[in-house]
C-alpha cells in the first residue's frame, strides 16, 4: 500500500514539474530570443501551461480515417508510460528511492528504450508518409545513440562497482564526483542523451521544417499531450540520471554544505541538466540525418570504447 501511495505522489510531483518545465522552457527561449515568453495568463504567465493543457484535453479526439486504430491509440501510452517508470529507480535523496533495484541503471536504459517502440508505432499507425519517415529516423537515431549512452554509463559502473544507482552515488561520496575521472565519458553521455531525448541539435524526428511534425503529424488533443508529456518527463529523468551518474546525486558539493538536505542538491543538479537542452535549442541548428549517424558510429562509439578501456586500466593499476 505505501508503495502505491508513493507512486501516486511521484506522479503528482512529476506532473507539477512538467507543467513548470514547459513554462520555464518558453520563458527561457523567449528571453534568449529577445522576447518575453508567456505573460498574459495568470501572474507572469504562470498559468499558461495549465490553460494549454486544458485546451488540449477538451479538444475533439480526431482519428484520421485510414489509420491502424488500435495501434494509433496505444502508441502514445507506450511512448509515455516508460518515462514515469524510469523515475522509480532514481535516488532522489538518501533513502528516497521508489524502487531500489539492484540493476537500477540497466533498468533505466532498458525501460527508456521502450519509448522508441511507441514512436515507431505512432508513426506507422498514422498512415502518413511524414509520420513514417519521422518514426524511421527516430528509430535509427535512438538505437544508434543508445550504444554510446550505455557504453559511457558502463564506465561509471566500472568506477562504482555496481549497477545500483544508490551505490553509484555512495561510491562518489567515498572518492570524487565521477565527472572528474569520467570527463570524456560525461561528454559522450551528454551528447548521446541529447540525441536520445530528440533535442536540438538532434531533433530530427520532429524536424518541423523538413518533416512537418514527424511522427506527431496526425496526433492532436489528448494523444498529442501524452507524447509531449512523455518528452518533458524524460527531460527531467535524463537530468536526474546525469546528476546521479556524474555529479554525485544528492551529495553536497562540499561536506561543509551537508546541512542543506540532499533532495535540494539533487533537484538543483537534475533541473540544471533538464534545462540545458533549452539553452542548446536556442543556440544550434539541426544536424543532418546522415551526419548524425556518422557522429554516433564513427565518433562517439569508438570514443566511448576507448573511455571504457581507459577506465578499466585505471581501476586495475591504480
Amino acid at each position, binding site marked *: 500500500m505505501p508503495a502505491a501511495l508513493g507512486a501516486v505522489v511521484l506522479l503528482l510531483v512529476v506532473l507539477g514539474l512538467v507543467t513548470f518545465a514547459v513554462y520555464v522552457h518558453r520563458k527561457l*527561449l523567449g528571453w*534568449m*530570443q*529577445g*522576447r518575453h515568453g508567456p505573460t498574459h495568463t495568470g501572474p507572469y504567465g504562470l498559468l499558461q501551461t495549465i490553460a494549454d493543457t486544458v485546451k488540449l484535453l477538451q479538444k475533439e479526439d480526431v482519428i484520421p480515417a485510414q489509420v491502424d486504430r488500435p495501434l494509433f491509440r496505444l502508441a502514445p501510452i507506450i511512448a509515455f508510460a516508460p518515462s514515469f517508470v524510469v523515475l522509480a529507480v532514481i535516488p532522489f535523496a538518501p533513502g528516497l528511492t521508489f524502487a531500489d533495484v539492484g540493476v537500477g541503471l540497466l533498468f533505466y536504459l532498458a525501460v527508456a528504450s521502450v519509448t522508441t517502440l511507441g514512436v515507431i508505432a505512432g508513426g506507422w499507425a498514422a498512415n502518413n*508518409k511524414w509520420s513514417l*519517415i519521422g518514426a524511421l529516423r527516430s528509430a535509427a537515431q535512438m538505437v544508434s545513440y543508445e550504444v554510446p549512452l550505455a557504453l559511457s554509463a558502463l564506465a561509471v559502473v566500472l568506477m562504482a562497482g555496481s549497477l545500483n544507482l544508490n551505490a553509484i552515488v555512495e561510491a562518489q561520496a567515498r572518492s570524487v564526483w565521477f565527472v572528474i575521472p569520467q570527463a570524456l565519458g560525461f561528454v559522450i553521455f551528454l551528447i548521446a542523451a541529447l540525441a536520445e531525448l530528440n533535442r*536540438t*541539435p538532434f*531533433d*530530427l524526428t520532429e*524536424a*518541423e*521544417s*523538413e*518533416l*512537418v511534425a514527424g511522427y506527431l503529424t496526425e496526433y492532436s488533443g489528448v494523444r498529442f499531450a501524452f507524447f509531449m508529456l512523455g518528452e518533458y518527463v524524460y527531460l527531467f529523468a535524463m537530468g536526474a540520471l546525469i546528476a546521479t551518474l556524474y555529479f554525485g546525486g544528492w551529495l553536497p558539493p562540499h561536506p561543509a554544505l551537508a546541512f542543506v538536505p540532499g533532495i535540494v542538491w539533487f533537484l538543483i543538479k537534475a533541473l540544471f541538466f533538464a534545462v540545458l537542452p533549452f539553452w542548446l*535549442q*536556442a*543556440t*544550434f*541548428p*539541426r*544536424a*543532418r*540525418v*546522415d*551526419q548524425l549517424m556518422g557522429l554516433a558510429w564513427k565518433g562517439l562509439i569508438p570514443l566511448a570504447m576507448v573511455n571504457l578501456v581507459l577506465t578499466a586500466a585505471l581501476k586495475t593499476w591504480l
Partner: protein
Amino acid sequence: MATLRTEELVLNVGPQHPSTHGVFRLIVTLDGETIVDARPVIGYLHRGTEKLAEDLTYTQIIPYTDRMDYLSAMIGNYALVHAVETLMGLEIPERAEYLRVIAMELNRIASHLVWFGTYLLDLGAITPFLYAFREREKILQLFAEISGARLTYSYMRIGGVKWDVPDEGWLGRVERFVDDFERALEEFHTLVTGNEIVQARLKGIGRIDRETAIAYGLTGVNLRSTGVAYDVRKAKPYSIYDRFEFEVPVRTEGDLWARYLLRLEEMEQSRRIVKQAVRQFPSGGEIMARMPKLIRPPAGEVYTSVESPRGELGVYIVSEGKPQPYRIHFRRPSFVNLQILPRLLIGENVANMIAILGSIDIVLGEVDA
C-alpha cells in the same frame, strides 16, 4: 537468398508545408531518403497580374508590383516606374532619386534579413529568425514613417516618389539604423556563420557550376555564387547607382555556403550605399517631375531591368500610346531561378531538399505573379 522488394515513395511536399515559403508544391519520389525525381508545381498564388495590367493605367499597376515580390516591394515599384520613365524619356528630380535609392537598398537589407531568418529556421535554428526580424522591424518602421505601409508600399510614382521625408529627423534615423546594423551583422556572423553544424550542412551541398547557372538563366546571388560578377546595378547602371562606391560580392564554390555568405555580404554593401546616399542627400528640390494628369507613354516598346534581392527583375512594355499598356511582361527572377531546382534535388536527401530550396530564395508571389 531472395532480395527484399523495395518500392519508391512518392511524397507530396506542400502547398501547405512549413518550409516551402508560401504555397509552393513539390512532388518528390524517394528511394529511401534519397530523391530520385522532383516535380515542382506552381500557380497556387497566380493572380494574372500581366493580363490585369492591360486594363489598368500605368499608375494603377504599381500596387500589383508590391504584391509580386512582397519582400522587396520598393524594388518592384521601381522596376515598373523605371520602365515607363525610360519609355517616356523622363528626367527624375535628384531628391526623388536619392529617396528611391535609400528605400530600395533598405528594402534589399530587409528582404535578405527575412531570407537569413527563415533559412536558418529551415535548418532548425530558431533564434536567428527572431534576431533577423528584430532588425527588419526597424526598417519597416522607417518605411511606415515615409510611405504609411509596412509591406506594400506603393511608394514610387512615374516621375518621382509619392512622399517626401516625413520630418527632419527621418534621415538621421536611417543613418542611425545603418550604423547600428553593422553590429547586428557582426552578431549574425558570430552566432551563425562560425557554427560547426551550419558549415557542415551548407558546404559542398547544392552545387551549381558556372555554365549550368548561365544556361538556366540564373541571376542574382544564385549566379554570383558560381563566379559570375553580374549585378544589374553595375552591369547596366540605372538610377544614380554610379555615384556610390560599392562592391559586387562574388564567390566561386556555387554551393549553399557561398550563397549564404553572399547574401550576408550584400547586406553590408547595401548598408554602405544607404550610408553614402544619406550623406549626399540634397537639401532641397522637388520629389516629382512635372507630369501630365494622364500618363500616356509614346508608342513603342521598352525593356529595362533592375537588381532585385533575388536577381534580375525585368519589365517589358509594349505601348500603343494609350494610358494602358498593350502588353506588359515581368521577368521574375524567382520564377527563372526556380527552374534549376529539380536538377539540384536529384540524388539528395530530404534534409538537403529543404536547404537547397531555401537557398534559391524564392518568393511565391513573384513565382506565380
